[in-house]
């Protein structure tokens, strides 16, 4: 039942023992910090809107970089064979790895809490949208982690896993900005597919079941596809 926690712990240990976690987190903080604060003082407003509007596009390439190794590395080294001959189920493996990717994303977000805290010191920050924004960011991080896990399960090559994952995440982020390409009859549907659209809704502080269902179903579909992809492999 709790077998997945052993895999989760092992993956987290791997992240923090090797330099991957530190490199990815530093890159993430430098990029968000630079883009956010380079315009922040020009607007002269104490809010985090700039940060949250950047987040989906940055997540779209940072998260696949975190998750790319989860399965691809094991498949490449052959340790996947050993993992499968131990008393664990596919769901333990997939859920453990997904949770590790998600917790890494959470760790990155945790460090960005420095931004709202420092803004609250210098101005009058409205915490409502900030909390909504972080909730949305967690949902988005979970979704992209699940997509990254799926991309990683498809290939032995971590670079391919990264490109594949980033491509899917980018498509979901940008699709609602390309609405003018689509016929009017399917506009609503295409907009509903966009991850950024739902993220903006949650970040505005409106928690609607439609947005929650969107994120949860993408996570479920990705993890289930991972299951199918792994079943196919022998």
């Amino acid at each position, binding site marked *: 039942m709790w077998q997945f926690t*052993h895999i989760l712990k092992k993956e987290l240990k791997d992240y923090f023992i090797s330099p991957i976690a530190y490199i990815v987190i530093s890159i993430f903080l430098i990029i968000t910090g630079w883009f956010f604060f380079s315009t922040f003082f020009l607007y002269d407003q104490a809010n985090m809107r700039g940060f949250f509007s950047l987040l989906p596009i940055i997540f779209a390439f940072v998260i696949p970089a975190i998750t790319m190794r989860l399965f691809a590395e094991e498949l490449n080294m052959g*340790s996947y064979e050993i993992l499968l001959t131990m*008393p*664990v189920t596919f769901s333990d493996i997939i859920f453990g790895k997904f949770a590790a990717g998600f917790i890494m994303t959470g760790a990155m977000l945790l460090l960005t809490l420095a931004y709202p805290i420092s803004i609250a010191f210098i101005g009058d920050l409205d915490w409502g949208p900030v909390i909504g924004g972080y909730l949305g960011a967690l949902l988005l991080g979970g979704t992209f982690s699940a997509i990254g896990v799926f991309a990683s399960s498809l290939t032995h090559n971590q670079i391919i896993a990264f490109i594949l994952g980033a491509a899917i995440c980018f498509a979901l982020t940008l699709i609602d900005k390309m609405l003018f390409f689509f016929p009017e009859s399917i506009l609503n549907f295409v907009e509903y597919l966009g991850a950024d659209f739902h993220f903006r809704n949650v970040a505005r502080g409106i928690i609607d079941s439609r947005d929650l269902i969107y994120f949860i179903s993408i996570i479920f579909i990705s993890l289930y596809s991972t299951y199918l992809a792994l079943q196919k492999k022998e």
Partner: protein
Amino acid sequence: MIHVENLTKYYDNFCAVDQLNIEINKGEILGLLGPNGAGKTTTLKMLTGYSKPSSGTIQVNDYNIENNPLEIKQMIGYLPESSPFYKDMLVYDYLEYVSKIKGIKPSDRHPRLRYLADLCGLNHIMHKAIGELSKGLNQRVGLAHAMMNDPEILILDEPTQGLDPNQIVEIRHIIKKIGQEKTVIFSTHILSEAEATCDRIIIINRGKIVADGNTADLKQAADQKTIIQLSLLNAETEFVQKTLTAIEGINQVEQIGLTDDGVLNIKAYSNSTEDLREKIYKAIKATDWVIIEFLQEAKTLETIFRDLTRQIN
């Protein structure tokens, strides 16, 4: 204990394992022999539940691999061919991780790790990353991994590959020791190893069993042909042929070569079970030939193996 019925595995159109039927009893040390690509590894992978059979069933005690894979995996310890472990992990961390996944109680973990470290000789490398280890040490980590939860069945895919002669003897010793209580199945293509360690040997070729039994059985079942090698000085081929074929029981005499020093090498074949060496000696004694070499080829596992796996080809 293990019951394998009509096990078949196809990779696309290639049939790697073809209708295999094996019954393995508790406490047996079973050696799986065969040339490269015979289907040894595929068979072992199916036994561990890693690879799904195309058809056929595997039953371990009362469990079926289809319906109860977790129970079976809990009973099996597996050492894969090239021991591919996480290269960045320390040996200790890795073994601790395995002990958790295999469900060893926290209080028993430390004593178990200590015991395995002693058994497999890992004490001096517990703090090293697995990626830094030599092939032989890596193999020993694999053995510790496989024996972690004291499994009923140990499946080892070429356990002595890449080890030095001392380590091979050590590993054989370990296998024998475990085999007293547990069931051990291992594959190898080193015949002397199988002969030295196994209670029972199964030779497979092209996915099919071509021989099954202990070493003595196999030797008996193999072709009864005896070959006697002779090197003679001062002898003429024709005359030798005539003399030897006159001996009852010898049905063919073949000249292998004639060296520059005038040594004639011949081989005499016989189908009889009688030992013909005395008759041959007496026949030669009557002439003025000089015997340089006189050798009866013993039926070794190697010749049996070659016969069996070549016939099919």
